[in-house]
């Protein structure tokens, strides 16, 4: 425990670095998955292609990808950019099929009736289709967030600063408390992010939560 108390500043620094690598992939994957999923849903064969590619993408082990990526795109081996790009690819592999399901979950009757009310196509997307896909999209983002936060630790092996450095360093120097701190801090970060996402979902989609309450 004393190790933890003595090194709070180190832990805080790694937590910050960890978040800086985790948040961009989560946000990027969410934003990019929307047009990609819409595109995939517009053609049957594209959708099959996207689902297959996503599955294959996820089968690539993360460590070799982190190692190979700098060679492919010309970044430094220890640059957090590698981690961000690789994790965005993984996050997309999870998020695009989920978003595609999300858009397909929206009732065609509701969309048809929105058109009949006189929503222009763009307004119909932003005001009807996107919010109604929201619950499924949120489910996807939650999985992506937790998995991304945990995958960032792999970069620690390569010396990219993150909470993963705590295990690597703890194992190398035989400090059990440091290893424990790494695990607990990563899990806490993941749980906290997930809780925030759930709260955000409640705030943005009150209709989804009130649905089963008080029916006449």
């Amino acid at each position: 425990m004393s190790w933890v108390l003595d090194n709070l500043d180190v832990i805080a620094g790694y937590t910050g670095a960890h978040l800086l690598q985790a948040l961009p992939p989560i946000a990027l994957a969410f934003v990019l998955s929307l047009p990609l999923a819409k595109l995939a849903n517009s053609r049957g064969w594209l959708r099959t292609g996207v689902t297959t590619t996503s599955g294959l993408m996820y089968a690539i082990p993360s460590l070799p990808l982190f190692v190979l990526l700098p060679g492919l795109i010309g970044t430094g081996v220890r640059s957090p950019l590698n981690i961000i790009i690789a994790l965005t690819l993984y996050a997309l592999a999870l998020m695009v099929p989920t978003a595609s399901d999300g858009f397909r979950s929206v009732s065609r009757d509701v969309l048809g009736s929105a058109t009949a009310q006189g929503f222009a196509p763009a307004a119909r997307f932003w005001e009807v289709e996107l919010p109604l896909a929201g619950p499924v999209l949120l489910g996807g983002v939650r999985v992506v967030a937790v998995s991304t936060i945990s995958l960032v630790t792999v970069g620690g092996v390569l010396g990219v600063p993150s909470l993963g450095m705590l295990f690597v360093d703890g194992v190398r120097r035989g400090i059990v408390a440091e290893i424990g701190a790494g695990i607990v801090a990563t899990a806490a970060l993941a749980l906290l992010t997930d809780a925030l996402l759930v709260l955000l979902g409640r705030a943005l989609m009150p209709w989804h939560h009130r649905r089963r309450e008080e029916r006449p």
Partner: protein
Amino acid sequence: MIGFENVRKEYPGGTLAVEDFTLEIASHEAVALVGTSGSGKTTLMRMINRMVDPTSGRVTIDGEDVAGMNPVALRRSIGYVMQASGLLPHRTVLDNITTVPVLRGTSKTAARERARELMHIVGLDPALATRYPAQLSGGQQQRVGVARGLAADPNILLMDEPFGAVDPIVRDELQGELQRLQRELRKTIVFVTHDIDEAFRIGDRVVILRPGGRIAQVGTPQEILAAPADDFVASFVGADRGARTLHIERIEGRDVIVDADGRAAGVLSAAPARGGADEDRADGTSASTAGQEPPR
């Protein structure tokens, strides 16, 4: 006035939904389209607000071809009511009703004030204003649908099986409300249903469709009942089964109207006892029918 001139609709993939349909619907008239599933009713209705464009032929409103109109603006000017599933599940009752006025640029406050009036008109408890559609009963959802269709005060109201998803008692009540509203508002209504009784009750004129949107008969309910054009129409309206045949039996000194199954349908009187022409129009008799109004 709505005009269909030799309208044909072939969907991509080759389904011929409507072969060659011609009909004129007068302003302030309620026309009911009835036919079996797949006979092209929804397709015909959606050609009016350009949700579907005809493969050939023209659809006109007051003589102007809708093909030349901006579809979004056109839809905002026409009320559209469908089964309850068409409400926006993520918006409250009040926001559902204000959708079209707000799209048309009416201020939120003005639209909401009007929406509260409409809730009253269609018989919705004001306390339901902040509920979401999933928190309402089927009948309440349907009333919201009607209020939404009327919100922008359109001249034309398109109704696609609006009462198809509610139980018979609520349906009967909603049909009654729509008749009452129509007496006051006198919209041009196109009402799609596959329930012939509903068609006879709502429609000033009824169009009976065969598959392919082919017209089997057009006429007032009386005309169709009095002279079904052919066996298809006769069987559709139930005339062939004797289901519509009523006869008079003298019971306890009064003329009681009895249907084909021997059940009493009403009592014969010299003049309509209440309600006016609408209620007995379909039978063509002056009967005060028992059990037509559900218990409230």
